[in-house]
């Protein structure tokens, strides 16, 4: 399991490769990559700053990954989340899951992402032509996380 909160960019290909390398039990790899868009809530976004709660961030992602492992066949998992200054098209987050089968890989990857969006202490501040603004949490993200309580 690899969890990293970092300012630097990451190499998706290398990270995904590293998850399965040399492990013949891995039959499926699912990955999600999130990146910065240039439009949000109807406004142009120039740059954004990602703030987090050092210590709690790593702990909460670790707890989310542990929950995923207890629910699905997760052989290995990598979560990388960037913080600091980011621009449109920059990568923000990578969640990659190696499993025996695709069903578990897809489900665990989506679960980690949904939980990360509602439980890991990150906050985005956007710069728009009208000035800086903190991104508001979306109820659709809460709903996405809640549906996992009914599944399986």
């Amino acid at each position, binding site marked *: 399991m690899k969890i990293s909160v970092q300012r630097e960019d990451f190499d998706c290909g290398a990270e995904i490769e590293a998850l399965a390398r040399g492990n013949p039990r891995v039959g499926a790899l699912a990955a999600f990559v999130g990146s910065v868009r240039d439009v949000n809530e109807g406004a142009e976004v120039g740059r954004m700053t990602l703030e987090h709660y050092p210590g709690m961030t790593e702990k909460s992602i670790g707890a989310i990954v542990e929950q995923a492992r207890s629910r699905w066949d997760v052989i290995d998992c990598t979560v990388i989340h960037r913080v600091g200054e980011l621009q449109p098209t920059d990568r923000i987050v990578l969640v990659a899951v190696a499993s025996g089968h695709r069903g578990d890989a897809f489900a665990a990857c989506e679960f980690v992402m949904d939980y*990360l*969006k509602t439980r890991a*202490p990150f*906050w*985005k*501040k956007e710069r728009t032509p009208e000035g800086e603004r*903190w*991104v508001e*949490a979306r109820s659709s993200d809460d709903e996405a996380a809640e549906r996992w309580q009914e599944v399986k």
Partner: protein
Amino acid sequence: MRIKLLFFASLREQLGIAGEELDLPAEVSTVGALRAHLRQRGPAWQAALAEGKLVRAAVNQGMAGPAVTIVAGDEVAFFPPVTGG
């Protein structure tokens, strides 16, 4: 009872403070009571931590609801709903 208090994101900006060490009266022993206690500090605090406003809390770096108990030496954080990913 001495605790460490932290604020993040918009809450930190509204209150103009990132963190402090704080001596709490004995009766302030839960997250909810602490939030009410801090509201008494003035208008900015009342607005930022107003009842009904979505404010999350963590005790010792784990998400905590208003009923969670606080003991001496705890690290308590208040912040807005998270927006990562």
